[in-house]
């Protein structure tokens, strides 16, 4: 299965830049995610790969072949749409066979392939039904079957699960990943749901306003976000703004930050970008915070006031305030702190991420 490469791609609609990608390479056989909020350009990028949208500038490659000028119907890329786009006037069988018929394959070859795809997606008993007679999950499977039955060079997914309910979504996620690994088809997956992207994808590109913010594995993106946007978009993140006073441990990348209201905290930073005196946003996630029993005279231990408390069954979700900064914090449900209470928390310096402003 070949790799996909985008070079110098630019697409504008009027004054709005929908996509501006100097370089993006999707490796052979990998399940690649395009993650971003609505309107970030991820669907545009996908459509450019598919050939449904023509870029203003730039080239698209599959393997070594430049397919920028090849019309979409000749690119042999399977695509699964958000609304699944099943042909309402055809049976499930005919839907799946649609592309095969266009290639003028023999009847038995068509039947063989459809059977194969249907078994793979576990919809063999639905072949005689019409799309309107199927549930959402079933329709989605038919859409995938239809795409893979052509043995495409790559699979493109445009938020295919967003029309399903939450429970089903979680279930299907794993199935999709399992399928992709089995077939070993290079796949590109567009979504705005971070949890989904993390569950399915090998690598993810976070996109905002048409530009790629960061590419990396889910761990890299989660633990080492490179921009404020990525840090904020991934997970539940709050920021503490401050200035770098000095670099404490160069080998570990630990710095000391002073906020304007006099808080001193230690955090990790990418020392190639962050220097002494830089203004930084320190990203704090709930899992970077621990509860401590009393006022320890240690670094990064602070007194916090509980502002809001929400019971979620398996956790307690709090909003706490340190100085002027409001942070999110979670504990097991046995700790039932009430708003107004004061607690002591420690912010782990090696987990905090200081990002240059």
């Amino acid at each position, binding site marked *: 299965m070949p790799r996909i490469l985008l070079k110098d791609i630019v697409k504008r609609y009027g004054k709005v830049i929908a996509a501006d990608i100097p370089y993006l390479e999707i490796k052979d056989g990998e399940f690649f995610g395009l993650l971003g909020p609505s309107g970030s350009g991820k669907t545009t990028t996908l459509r450019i790969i598919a050939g449904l949208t023509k870029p203003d500038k730039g080239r698209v490659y599959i393997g070594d072949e430049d397919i920028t000028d090849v*019309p979409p119907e000749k690119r042999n890329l399977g695509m699964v749409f958000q609304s699944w*786009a099943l042909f309402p*006037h055809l049976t499930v069988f005919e839907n799946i066979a649609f592309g095969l018929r266009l290639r003028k394959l023999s009847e038995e070859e068509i039947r063989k392939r459809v059977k194969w795809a249907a078994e793979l997606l576990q919809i063999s008993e639905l072949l005689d039904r019409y*799309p309107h007679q199927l549930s959402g999950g079933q329709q989605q499977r038919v859409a995938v079957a*239809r795409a893979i039955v052509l043995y495409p060079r790559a699979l493109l997914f445009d938020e295919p699960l967003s029309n399903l309910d939450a429970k089903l979504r979680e279930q299907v996620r794993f199935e999709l990943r399992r399928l992709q690994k089995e077939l070993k088809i290079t796949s590109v997956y567009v979504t705005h749901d971070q949890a989904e992207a993390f569950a399915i994808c090998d690598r993810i590109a976070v996109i905002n306003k048409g530009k790629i913010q960061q590419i990396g594995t889910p761990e890299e993106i989660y633990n080492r976000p490179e921009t404020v946007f990525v840090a904020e978009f991934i997970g539940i993140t709050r920021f503490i703004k401050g200035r770098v006073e000095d670099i404490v441990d160069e080998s570990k990348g630990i710095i000391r930050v002073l906020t304007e209201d006099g808080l001193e905290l230690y955090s990790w930073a990418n020392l190639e970008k962050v220097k002494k005196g830089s203004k930084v946003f320190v990203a704090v996630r709930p899992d970077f915070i621990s509860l401590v029993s009393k006022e320890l005279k240690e670094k990064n231990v602070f007194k916090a006031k509980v502002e809001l408390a929400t019971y979620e069954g398996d956790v307690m979700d709090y909003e706490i305030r340190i100085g002027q900064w409001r942070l999110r914090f979670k504990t097991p449900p046995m700790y039932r702190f009430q708003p107004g209470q004061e607690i002591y928390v420690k912010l782990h310096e090696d987990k905090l991420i200081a990002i240059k402003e």
Partner: protein
Amino acid sequence: MRVTREDLISIIFLLPLYIFIIIMVFIPIINVILGSFGISIFGEQVNATFTLAGYKEFLAPESPYLYSLFFTIYVSLIATIISVLAGYLFAVYLTVKKPPIWSKISTVMTIPLFTPYIVGAFMWWTLLWPRGYLSLLINGLLMKLGVVHEPIPLVNDPYGIGILFGEVWIRFVIAVAIFYGPLQMINPELIDAARSLGAGTWTIIRKIFIPLTKYALIATSAIILLATMAGVSIPLILGGSWPQFLNVMIYLDVTTRFNYLMAYTSGVFYIIASATLGYLFFRFTTRKVVLQTR
């Protein structure tokens, strides 16, 4: 069975409609049918004398009336086919390509809808008569290409060319207007999906648009066919001495020859032809429940 209060209320509400239909539809049709046999309730000959002379004359071999009827249906069919095909393809073009100029010129394109038929007919006559701009252009082109040696008449001609120009001009716009809606309702992702599966534009039209707008096609064709058959202004102005539309013959029979018998008889055949064609068309659309675009 007792008639309940609800029944009475629904009867009363529907009464005006029924009365309207009886006065405006049934009674005139019955008048025409009776008149074709020589019996007349309102108007002319109050002496009722049953006669089949009208039918004899209409159905005589080589009868100009019979030929007129065929000519009417034939030309209307051609006009319908051209309008529906061109209208459909144009509406598909608008749906698929979404050209940005469309929003600016779409109002201009609806002008034929607002033009009274007779004004449109005269407009085409001035364009198509031997000294009309269009006639000079077309004939000049044809002669240059060597297709013809002398200018061919494009209006008042024996093939109904003039009539076709006038009719298609109006019906084309109607076709586009009617097809545009159902085509817009088709999920645009269906088109993308078909493309990604390897379908070219022509395949998409054949396998996706047409099946999903089947009923619109049939219904529109029926509407346009019946409207073209019935309209008299265009064939009157743009038609030739021979052959003529049957409704033009009715007009001439009444106003210059005062021959009501043949006019009624022609009317009966008109009604039969229209009803038959209408029935044939609508039978195939109202039978099934419409399962269009989802």
